């Protein structure tokens, strides 16, 4: 392990990507976008500079939800769509841990779709990375919540009739304080986004358009991303404006804009901070521990 000032970070990190890579070999299809996302996560964690035992990675079910197993951090490949409630519980119980949640678009916006607004409104200090491949890859390519209208899949042989969920609009509308999008076609750019999301104090959402090489269409592949992706900073975007972010987020599905859509310049307090504040406020009047049971007993 080399000790060096990491140019990706303002902090001095003694970690390299290798420190976060586990011995388990990824079994994703060769060419899958998730390989690049994993690489970006290793690099971002190295730049952050916290040891693997201080990091926990919670996922749901799906191809991308295998990611905790491929890192040396603590990991829980949990239940379909339930990465966020588990991650929130963990963060409340162990606030000192750096907690990341990850999964696919089906896991996040269909099966677990109901958990996303609550994670946003609670605003715990989590980073949620969605690998949005616009299909259910692990179960062999069914229509997912973000599949484009007209997409032919095994469950939409004549093309999907449904409008896709727009993950960026979804989280922005519920008030998320940090919203970004990246692609494994630009791994250094994605690394910077993930690092910034982790450093953001509060719920941070990163949508990664991560192509499914097996069931995706040609215009969803990395080669296409390389040709069309455009950095938000190059189009004069003001990331401190939620209105501008909502406007740019409407391009989801037609353009590939990457970077930070919205970063709240005055982030609201996190749930953890509010809980600690409440505990401190109530502490002087708290009943002695041995008398707490009395509060529940009618005399």
């Amino acid at each position: 392990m080399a000790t060096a000032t990491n140019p990706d970070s303002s902090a001095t990190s003694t970690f390299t990507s290798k420190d976060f890579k586990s011995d388990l070999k990824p079994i994703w299809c060769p060419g899958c976008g998730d390989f690049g996302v994993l690489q970006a996560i290793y690099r971002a964690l190295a730049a952050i500079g916290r040891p693997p035992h201080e990091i926990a990675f919670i996922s749901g079910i799906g191809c991308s939800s295998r990611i905790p197993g491929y890192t040396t951090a603590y990991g829980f490949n949990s239940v379909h769509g339930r990465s966020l409630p588990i991650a929130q519980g963990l963060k409340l119980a162990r606030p000192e841990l750096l907690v990341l949640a990850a999964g696919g678009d089906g896991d996040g916006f269909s099966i677990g779709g109901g958990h996303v607004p609550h994670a946003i409104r609670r605003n715990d200090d989590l980073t949620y990375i969605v690998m949005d491949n616009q299909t259910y890859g692990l179960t062999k390519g069914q229509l997912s919540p973000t599949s484009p209208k007209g997409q032919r899949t095994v469950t939409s042989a004549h093309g999907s009739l449904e409008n896709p969920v727009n993950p960026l609009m979804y989280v922005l509308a519920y008030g998320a304080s940090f919203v970004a999008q990246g692609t494994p076609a630009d791994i250094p750019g994605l690394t910077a986004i993930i690092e910034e999301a982790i450093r953001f104090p509060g719920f941070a959402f990163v949508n990664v358009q991560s192509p499914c090489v097996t069931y995706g269409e040609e215009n969803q592949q990395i080669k296409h991303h390389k040709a069309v992706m455009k950095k938000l900073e190059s189009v004069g975007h003001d990331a401190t404006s939620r209105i501008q972010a909502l406007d740019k987020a409407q391009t989801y599905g037609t353009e590939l804009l990457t970077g930070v859509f919205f970063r709240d310049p005055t982030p609201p307090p996190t749930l953890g901070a509010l809980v600690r504040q409440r505990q401190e406020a109530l502490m002087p009047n708290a009943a002695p521990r041995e008398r707490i049971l009395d509060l529940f007993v009618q005399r």
Partner: protein
Amino acid sequence: MSSTKGINFPTLSLKDALDLAILIEEEACERYQEFADQMEIHRTHEAAQFFRLMAGNEEKHRSELAARRVERFAAQPSSVTRSMIFDIEAPDYDEARAFMTERAALRAALRSEEKAYAFFVAALPQIKDDAVRALFEELRDEEVEHQELVRREIKKAPADPNLPDDDFGDEPVGQ
């Protein structure tokens, strides 16, 4: 898509240039190993064998450069890190495909050698130090040799079946 971050080429010392070259070979070696693992998992044995061979070549280049570095600068600390380079000689992740032919694997390797050559060609005009320039010229010329070697192998490789990529898709496997 290769990139660098935080490298000041005009002030690059020979020690840092050697370290950079070592890191480039290390990155390529690791990526070829990853590709070989992917191919083995997805029953693409010829390509796996080729990528394993490429990983061995990159490791050989890395250890040769590392020996030169030790001889010249012993254990002096390095001031360049892996986070400063990205995919200079390592094949892009989307080059890999399940059931890719030996010829397709060779073509992926050729594109990587071309990327590395382009990196040294782009860096050279910025170099001020004579010893660093000589090293980068040497490395650039080696990339040309590697390209020729790979092109010769492509000529010898069995012809592609001329089927679209879609016909070679594999499905997710269990773990």
